């Protein structure tokens, strides 16, 4: 008797189990991406049903927009590198401090993790009030010290600095916990051998600890850089891209095009350009990560 073609009961059962997840993936990930990609090649405003095909016109407009290449991209890359560098250094420092035996060690580790439990929007609102020019605690301290209060949120660099500071505060514990876990799994022998040879704390850290941490550090950097590229919540809450669009980062720019200016076409094109940029950045980082892992073997 020939074997029946198609799915058996077992396969049908397995398909039934994965079907809901697959349907959700299609409905909420694949279809919106396809609609967005389609919109990026059309004249498509949220208020107007006209959807004429315009080819690459929307891409040309985004790439030719001085705000995009003169403000948004520099801000985005500045935010990525400043935030990740400061977060990494702070996290590394805290991990080294916490990787010792001391009284209250457990309490200190828990306290360091607290910012991770704060939703970014809540943290951003808190920071906005701290830096409020009239009622904020920062200006109250400056005034108490006899200094002039500063209108923090009306200049590009102070605003961007506050956004970066907030991100560093939120993400330092994440670096700390990963680096601390790595530190505790490092082999003791190389350190002991170096100490017997008379190595001091700094050479020990620079020549032994840091190279051994390299794969973990590279994973942390890669994940955080990609994540920082798409930052939205804290920038929107603190500055909304202002003053006068001077602190817009990539995701704010795309959001404003689509949902403030209601140019769904330009917002979609900006999103796809951003996806392309982050794929290139991701590929470079992946190469660097592979190299770092290879070297440390």
């Amino acid at each position, binding site marked *: 008797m020939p074997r029946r073609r198609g799915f058996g*009961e077992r396969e049908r*059962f397995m398909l*039934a189990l994965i079907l809901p997840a697959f349907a959700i993936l299609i409905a909420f990930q694949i279809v919106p991406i396809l609609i967005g990609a389609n919109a990026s090649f059309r004249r498509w*405003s*949220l*208020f*107007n049903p006209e959807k004429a095909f315009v080819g690459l016109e929307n891409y040309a407009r985004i790439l030719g927009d001085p705000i995009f290449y003169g403000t948004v991209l520099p801000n985005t890359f500045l935010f990525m590198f400043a935030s990740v560098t400061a977060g990494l250094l702070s996290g590394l420092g805290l991990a080294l401090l916490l990787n010792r035996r001391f009284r209250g060690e457990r309490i200190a580790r828990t306290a360091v993790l607290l910012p991770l439990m704060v939703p970014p929007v809540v943290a951003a609102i808190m920071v906005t009030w701290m830096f*409020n*020019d*009239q*009622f904020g605690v920062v200006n109250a301290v400056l005034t108490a010290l006899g200094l002039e209060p500063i*209108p*923090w*949120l*009306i*200049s590009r660099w102070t605003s961007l600095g506050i956004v970066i500071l907030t991100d560093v505060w939120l993400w330092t514990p994440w670096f700390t916990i990963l680096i601390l876990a790595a530190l505790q799994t490092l082999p003791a022998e190389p350190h002991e051998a170096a100490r017997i040879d008379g190595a001091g704390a700094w050479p020990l850290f620079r020549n032994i600890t840091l190279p051994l941490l390299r794969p973990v550090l590279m994973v942390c950097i890669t994940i955080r850089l990609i994540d920082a590229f798409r930052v939205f919540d804290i920038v929107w809450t603190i500055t*909304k891209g*202002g*003053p*006068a*669009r*001077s602190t817009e980062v990539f995701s704010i720019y795309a959001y*404003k095009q689509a*949902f*403030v*200016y*209601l*140019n769904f076409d330009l917002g979609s094109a900006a999103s796809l350009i951003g996806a392309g940029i982050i794929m290139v950045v991701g590929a470079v980082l992946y190469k660097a990560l592979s190299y770092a892992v290879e070297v440390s073997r």
Partner: protein
Amino acid sequence: MNRRRFLGLTGGTLAVGLGAPAIGRAQSMELKIGYMPHPIHENSIKWMKLWAAEHKVNLTPVPTSYEVYVEKMTANLTSRGGQYDVIWHNDDWGQLWGRYLEPVDDVPAIKKMNRFLYEPPFVWEGKDTGVAFVETIGTFFYRTDLLKESEFPKNWDDFVKTSQRLQKDGKVKWGFAGGMKYPHGWFTFFWSLWANGGDLMMPLHERRNEELAKAGWKATIDSPEAVQAVEFWWDNIKTHKIAPPGQPGYSRDDANAIFMAGDAAITMADTTLYGKFNDPKQSKVAGKISVASFPMGPRAKFKSIAWRDAWAWAIPIHVDSAKKKAAKDLLNWINLNEEAQVDLWKATGGFPPNEEVQKKLIQSDPVFRKFRAATVESEKIIHGAYYFPRWPEFFATGIDHMVKAVTGPRDGIKAALAEGSKKMSEIAARA
């Protein structure tokens, strides 16, 4: 449990789950109201609830922040989403949403309202698309414990001198505080532009799209009147120091907070905030405030000027017909209910749109008379926005360039505004 039974049970549960809301719906009608948390909306919803209880309708108010309101509602309307049956409709979104809204000409209460409120903001292809629930009119609020009515500045020069005098005497920290950043520019840039004889586009004070198109969609924030208005703010912040240095980053809420904390002698806001400013639980200046007309600029073309617009409730066109009828009955009832209209004024300071009620208030309420004298009885009345679909982008671009001008060097103001004007003209022409 075997697989067949598992699949059967899962399918059955899903069918019951999906069917349950339909059964629930059949029992009573629900009206979902999309609104912004604001004293006016809350007052209107309070009266809606009374009507709903009498008519056995479940009323579900769904709040949405002003900062994301237009994008959220636009997405809902264009996707024919079922999240709302009645939505708050601001005048400056009239042309944006026109095609997605149910015509409401058949709501009799509209005939009791001033047509200026409706044309052009709430008219789409000859049909009204919103039922006004309050008139929104900007006015100056000032502290009566610091300034007598006769002392309120009539022009910009007085405005600066009066503020400086109060600050010098140690009576108040700031002469003035007002919202400046997008989308709050009415409370600084726009009023001063209009009070100085300028406007955002040519021809002056024109709001009909056909006429704006004939004039070539020409933005005019680089006009001498506009440049002078932005210089006025630059000087107020940096030279005269009568306004907080952080003002270019202020929303209306930031400025309100300063005024209600007693740190500013004067602010500019919609009359609809009178109730909030006068509430001792929220405001240190409660019981000590009054209203006045705009101080006029050196290039003013009229003795006084004010804007007069409305906030309305609208019905998405895709809502089912039974709900549309219920919503229209509800909106008609609120506007014809004298008690509800008077309560709106007494509780918030918002002008009730029913003009018959306004006439009675003029007779009976001296505070209402004062508010009218400071606003709608001005020599020139204009609309506070424009009504072409690209207004949100046009408006944001204008405010961003004004903020750029006021935070940059004084001699760069003209160039920043010229750049903004050029971009705004391009945006408007795309309409």
